[in-house]
């Protein structure tokens, strides 16, 4: 089942076109990686898909136009994790995760048993149940990232858009977060995740989308998207590649010195 269908998305920020005619689809059960160098427009595209930036083109959620959904419907359909998110008050982990239930609550309605269950389950899945009563400002970087991810999981949305959820995490927690997102997708959701780690993308994601200067330059399996040609074109690097335990890894190794693809 196709959950998200974006057709020729174009986004301009402050008059400058940052994303040009990107089309993509995400089906239930799919984990998609959005790749590309800094400034390629990944974050902008993700925010546009979440309905947070004005864009050209159309985004349809389960066949319905995003614009036709009410704010609450949209919030229940789609959970969004911004990049490098800050938390402005030192709420406890549980309180922050509970904010994910907001789209399910009427204005003065207190959280019901289903909401508490969703929060509990998100805390468990993110592995932070034992931190539930700790204030956010006492957490380590990894614990903070998992708390914010748990907040997104607590929405229990069929579509999750996560912008660099593994940035600033140690290797153990990077793997852990990727497993978590993989599990969430396997549970029947569509997940689109912005990544810089090519190996994590190759190993955990069903489909990779490579963005360069706002244009979708490649899309498909890890094998086709992470080819030497694409890595050179988009990232200007050459990479070591190989296989271990039947899974592909890609390790950026050398910067390209040749100027063939660069504009002056």
């Amino acid at each position: 089942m196709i959950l998200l269908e974006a057709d020729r998305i174009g986004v301009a920020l402050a008059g400058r076109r940052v994303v040009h005619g990107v089309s993509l689809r995400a089906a239930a059960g799919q984990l998609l990686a959005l790749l590309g160098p800094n400034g390629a427009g990944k974050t902008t595209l993700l925010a546009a898909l979440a309905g947070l930036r004005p864009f050209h083109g159309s985004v349809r959620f389960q066949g319905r136009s995003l614009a036709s959904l009410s704010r609450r419907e949209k919030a229940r359909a789609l959970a969004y994790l911004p990049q490098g998110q800050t938390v402005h008050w030192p709420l406890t982990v549980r309180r922050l995760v509970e904010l994910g239930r907001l789209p399910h609550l009427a204005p003065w309605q207190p959280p019901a048993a289903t909401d508490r269950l969703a929060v509990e389950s998100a805390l468990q899945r993110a592995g932070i149940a034992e931190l539930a009563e700790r204030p956010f400002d006492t957490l380590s970087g990894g614990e903070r990232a998992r708390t914010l991810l748990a907040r997104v999981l607590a929405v229990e949305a069929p579509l999750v858009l996560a912008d660099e959820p593994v940035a600033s995490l140690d290797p153990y927690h990077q793997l852990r977060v990727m497993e978590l997102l993989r599990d969430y997708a396997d549970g029947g959701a569509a997940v689109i995740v912005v990544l810089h780690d090519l190996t994590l993308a190759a190993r955990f994601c069903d489909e990779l989308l490579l963005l360069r200067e706002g244009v979708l330059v490649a899309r498909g399996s890890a094998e086709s998207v992470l080819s030497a040609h694409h890595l050179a074109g988009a990232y200007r690097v050459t990479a070591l590649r190989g296989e271990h335990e039947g899974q592909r890894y890609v390790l950026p190794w050398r910067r390209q010195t040749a100027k063939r693809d660069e504009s002056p």
Partner: protein
Amino acid sequence: MIPAPADDIRRYRRINAALAALLAGLTVAGLLLGSLPMSPWQTLANLVGGDERLAVIVLEIRLPRVLLSLLVGASLGLSGAALQGLLRNPLAEPGILGVSASAGLGAVLALYFGLAQIATWALPVCALLGALLATLILALLAARDSSPLSLILAGVAVSSLAVALTSLALNLAPNPLALSEMVLWLLGSLRDRGLSDVALAAPFMAVGWALLLSAGRELDALTLGEDAARSLGVGLGWLRTRVIGGTALTVGAATAVTGSVGFVGLIAPHLLRPWLGYQPGRVLLPGALAGAALLAAADLAVRLLPTRQELMLGVVTALLGVPFFVHLLLRARRTLS
């Protein structure tokens, strides 16, 4: 032991109940204590015994004063808590939007042009008009972009303009008496206010309170930043409109009847925030109750202190507030560095 989630709901209720009890105590004290050399017990006994002169003093002098201190204090505390949540800045306070300075300007103009002598309601009405005008200018200036910074800067601009025009009015004051009248009014006081002032301010405040109290959940969501809050279904424009509108109504009405009273809106939410898990929505109601308690206590102190001339309420709250503000600044600097 780790508290269960239900524990902090109980704690929230207990804090509100304790504050409500404190308010009840301050109200009774405000009615029974005063400049008459009479103990509270004696006052109570005489009232029950049918002392009509005393009844007039209590009902017509002390009652409006106590009521106004509660209403104004609650307005300042509530709008301070809501603004701190909206701007995600612990140093925000109702004055930051320039609404109180503009209400002050309206009142000073009413005194300057002698309107206040023609009709007693002219001064508060002019003050309310000043607050309304400031809100409109603020909305125009801040409408184009949604960041807290642009709202704060717009507030600074509105506030500076109002202060400059107020100074101009003082500068050109027709005579020393008018000048002292304007200056004293600006300092803020609850002296010689009547039930008509309560009746004038209360409706505006009630509407403003409703707007502010309805924003709790959305302010909670804003803890996660604007994009995350919007992705949770928060309409930022509508939220901002309600908080600014609510602040304009409550603080405009408060300034219209008491003059400017600073720092209560800054301090009241802060005193309680650590006990309420820093959740912005949870700070609203207790912030209002604490603001009311602070102002009622300050006004009681003003009335009972044996000074040669009664101290102005705004002077007292500022004197108490500044050390607290400095303490906050130092603490903020520690956490930032």
